């Protein structure tokens, strides 16, 4: 008999997870379910070939504190079960524009209304569109279990393609975005082979803070779908930090600064193409900050 639990409190959820993941008779691995936008498609693929799939669920959509956006001191906390539509509708500073732009390009409205930010990071797809903007915001992941709470940088939480550092008794409760300057702006560019409902070939998130003197005080650049894990381009950031934001910078975005990427060859694109596209999207993002009126920077 399949198990389906839908606790109304975080405490109940955590103790359930603890029991389920423990040793002995009560052990029974549970799959955490929220929007279902990854779990049910995976199930469809398994059902097609009469393969087994997870049938035991811990449904976290009834736990009020997991959904919603709130301030915690200087940080902003986004509950793990917050939907893309919630994020789009929220009043957030310009540093979050990239996250909102990503939210608007994840599936159709049907997916945006149900899919959650927590699910996107726990699913840990290399092409997860939510991850590059969060990495650019230096996101941390708030994790809870009956053993206690911990917070880890998103960059180390996602360990590989579909791999995270989440223990079996742990639950992601929120994404924590530490302090950011009010003057920070951000942008998300997605490249896919059709206009809607498309998995990214490459995506780029860029957060930029321009000093009063016109130089780049801070810049964070992340590329998605071009490595096993969306990746910050630290060398490129260092290259650009402190420089004046003008057209000459475009030439400084050179292939060598992308060597950290390890893109795949697959049905969507070649590895070679993904490197080139990442470079071009980064250049366009930079140009976009110079001329905010430019539209349609990505196809």
């Amino acid at each position, binding site marked *: 008999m399949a198990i389906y*639990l839908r606790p109304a409190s975080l405490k109940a959820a955590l103790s359930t997870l603890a029991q389920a993941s423990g040793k002995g008779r009560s052990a029974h691995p549970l799959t955490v379910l929220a929007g*279902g936008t990854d779990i049910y498609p995976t199930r*469809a693929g398994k059902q*097609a070939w009469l393969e087994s799939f997870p049938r035991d669920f811990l449904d976290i959509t009834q736990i009020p504190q997991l959904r919603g956006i709130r301030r915690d001191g200087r940080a902003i906390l986004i509950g793990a079960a917050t939907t893309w539509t919630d994020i789009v509708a929220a009043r957030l500073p310009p540093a979050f524009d990239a996250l909102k732009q990503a939210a608007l390009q994840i599936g159709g409205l049907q*997916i945006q*209304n149900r899919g959650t930010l927590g699910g996107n990071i726990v699913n840990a797809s290399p092409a997860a569109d939510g991850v590059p903007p969060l990495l650019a915001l230096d996101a941390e992941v708030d994790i809870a279990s009956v053993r206690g709470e911990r917070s880890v940088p998103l960059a180390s939480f996602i360990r590989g393609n579909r791999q995270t550092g989440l223990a079996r008794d742990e639950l992601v409760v929120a994404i924590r975005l530490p302090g950011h300057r009010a003057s920070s702006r951000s942008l998300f560019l997605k490249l896919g*082979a059709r206009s809607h409902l498309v998995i990214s070939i490459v995506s780029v998130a860029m957060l930029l803070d321009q000093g009063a003197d016109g130089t780049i005080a801070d810049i964070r650049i992340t590329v998605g779908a071009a490595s096993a894990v969306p990746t910050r381009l630290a060398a490129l950031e260092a290259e650009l930090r402190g420089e004046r934001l003008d057209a000459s910078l475009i030439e400084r975005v050179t292939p060598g600064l992308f060597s950290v990427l390890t893109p795949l060859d697959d049905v969507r694109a070649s590895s070679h193409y993904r490197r080139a596209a990442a470079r071009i999207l980064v250049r366009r993002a930079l140009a976009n900050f110079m001329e905010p009126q430019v539209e349609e920077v990505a196809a």
Partner: protein
Amino acid sequence: MITEEFTGAVALTVNGRKVEVGARPDMRLSRLLREELGLTGTKVGCDAGDCGACTVLIDEEQACACLVSAAQLEGRRVQTIEGLAEDPIGPALQRSFHHHGAAQCGICTPGMLMASLELLRRVEKVDRPMVETALGGVLCRCTGYLKICDAVLDAQNFLEPDDGLAGEDVSHIGDGGPSGFKSTALSQDLAAEMASAVGARVARLDGLSKLDGSEIYGADQAPEGALWLRAIRSPHWRAGFVIGDLGAFVSNEPGIFRVLTAVDVPGENSFGIFPDTKDQPVFAEGETRYRGEAVAAIIGERAAIDAFDVRRFPIRWEPLEPVLGIEAALSPNAHKVHVSRPDNVLVRGWVEKGDIDTAFRDCAHMAEGVFSTRFVEHAYIEPEAGFARRVGDRVEVFASTQAPYMSRDEVARVLGLEPGDVRIIPSACGGGFGGKLDVSLQPMLAIAAWQMGVPVRSVYTRPESMASTTKRHPSAISASAACDAQGRITAYAMEGDFDTGAYASWGPTVAGRVPVHGAGPYRVPNVLNRARAIYSNGPIAGAFRGFGVPQAAIAHEALYDELAEKCGLDRLEFRLLNALRIADETATGQVLQASAGLDRCLEALRPHWKRMLDEARTLNEKSAVTRRGAGIACMWYGIGNTALSNPSRMRIALTREGKLLFFNGAVDIGQGSTTVLTQIAADALGLPVSAFTIVAGDTDKTADAGKSSASRQTFVSGKAAENAALALRAEILRHTNAGPGARFSLQGSALTVEGKSESSVIDLSSSPSGADGIVFEGVGDFDPPTEPLDVKGQGVPYATYGFAAQIVALDVDMSLGTVRLERFVAAHDVGRAINPTLVEGQIHGGIAQGIGLALMEEYVPGRTENLHDYLIPSFGDVPAIEIILIEAPEPLGPFGAKGVGEPALVPAAPAILSGIRHATGVSIRDIPALPHRVRAALEAAGVATEI
């Protein structure tokens, strides 16, 4: 142990009514609606949130019902298509969709309507981008989205019911279900009441049921107590296998009652399109030849089938080295996929005319190239579904099909029965495009029902549908073309290899059609076109809108662009110079007698073409990164079977009750044949469209109208319908001694025949009739005149041809290699547009599929067996399309009409590739032109930009 387990029933509100359902908590909402509540208007296309067909509103928000667990619905309000009409804007949306022809096959329509409802509730004044965003989560494979968008934008204008547009209650017969007549309640468009139904924008007669969720598709109905069937399929490209003890297996699997394998097939364990190519087994014997091939089927209760883990099935697989791709299949030491074809060549087709050697030697200019295309999936949104039951010593199969009579004969063959002992009742067809010509689940279901004596049903999952059914043939084409100094084409030669996969299917048709059409719709005095269908261990390639002609057109149009350039001619003028006209001879030596309107198509496009070229010139002065291109392509397409008999029979009858019954065996797969054929019959008979009651495709009730393919139903079945109507008219005139110009009117059972001087009234209710109540009837046949091709491929393969030219403006991103389509202008010679709205719908949808072929679609077995890795054009990928209808009447056709279904698709992809070349100077010959392929070509040519 855990104690908080969810066990209780779910209480939710569905369409305003509170319901309590005792469903499993992880059951998908889509299944809860369809199977627990009987609300089958919500359609399932993928179970993965990729297609949006199952879109419903949950607390006013769009959701894919396939992604929501039953437990999450506690206390929620769900609205489905069945509740659409309760909303004030709902009926307006339905009327607007009906008026605009926004539903073709109708399978995506409930999802589209629910997404539209959510938008129109939220926003009062909507624009095109808002519609695209709001409906962007729903895929449509038929319409190209444009009429859907128009319908949503126009919905506010349909708030008040319009007399005669919708909702008219017209009588119909039978119970509508599989056991009786399948009937269609007719609506009445004002236009239909005008003197002529032909040429009027009659809203589709089978349209209303597609707009309220009541249409019955393959998965929507089955007899009470039907068992479920699932096939056990090979996960390997090629494998040997040994099946273990099935008796022990069944006794250990509660709820599974039977396993079928090859030994359970009562008749021949083989089927296939042609008498000499019945090479596909229902269940493989000894070896499987492609990934997804069935080796067995399990039959049992739903729950047991659902919970079954294939690891428990007693089978031992021995994966074998597969032959993949054309090159491997043709290598001398390749494994023989079928022993009957030692070289893996299933069939060869060729057309030879004139002397190409001399022509190439003496030409002024020459162009040559190698072109390749990939497997393309039909991606109809309705996966295969249906049921079978045994009725005495007969079998009935209710399923989604394009070809009921072929389906009947295939089922009879595998059961060892006479065709007359099999009844095929086509469900509404949620998209076909050639993919539902072959049988899929029908033989398995029929065998199960026959052997077990109980009804058995099955619904393919999306990956199962994609893995196991046919594809468009991948092609490898080498071609060369030559012209004289003035630009007159003098020669064309092509060698085309088509990967037909593991079984023959329609491979012979592709190999036959391609050489005939391979040089394009032009006067070419010297031709040598050869095509081969090659067996491999790939997916079965069969029929897909165009039978290889779209692939061949990519080659010839690219080469003619080059020739035009070499002789300094505009690409349109080059084509106009060479266009086939009346009295010209085709590559097969056929002299065209009539209805060759390509020159008129090109002339109509000329001003649009000049504008596109001017725009490109202006835009390209400014931008180096975004380059504008204008592309052009022409096509021709033989309507109906290639040099084979291709008959259709229609029957129209008047009953004692005054019912005008149209026995129409042509399957309307969304293209609109039911409407078009009735329009033809109405004008030929002299009664309005609204007088007809359709008795549609049921092999027990209707005569063989052939298959809905080869763009033949308007031309062939349309002519048969006209003949049937004329026969009925003659019968009535004979009865009343009225002159040929008499006018008919039908009121109740009173048929008034109004002659020049006198009129008479026939009281049908008191007229002598047969046991079936029929007083008068007319039967009409048509078989288009063709002649077989001789040893050089010379002859008259088709009675008529559709012609078209399309132009496209597009932007290429010279850095990313992406292509944005700006607009199409499509000029089509359709002979006569019986129903312009439906013709436009075909052209929109054909262009959309051409866009997919050109830019994004590539089926890779084991890798793109779903609708998120396999991309078809989505809302927003189809640009504005302007349509110019050219009517060069075909004397053989009904009211001058011929076909348009396939002609719409053929030129779209080559036009796009022509535009890319114009924009960039680079020819893309490895299709689809995905961004990385375009960028690679730009890099190779040294023209890629880096910003």
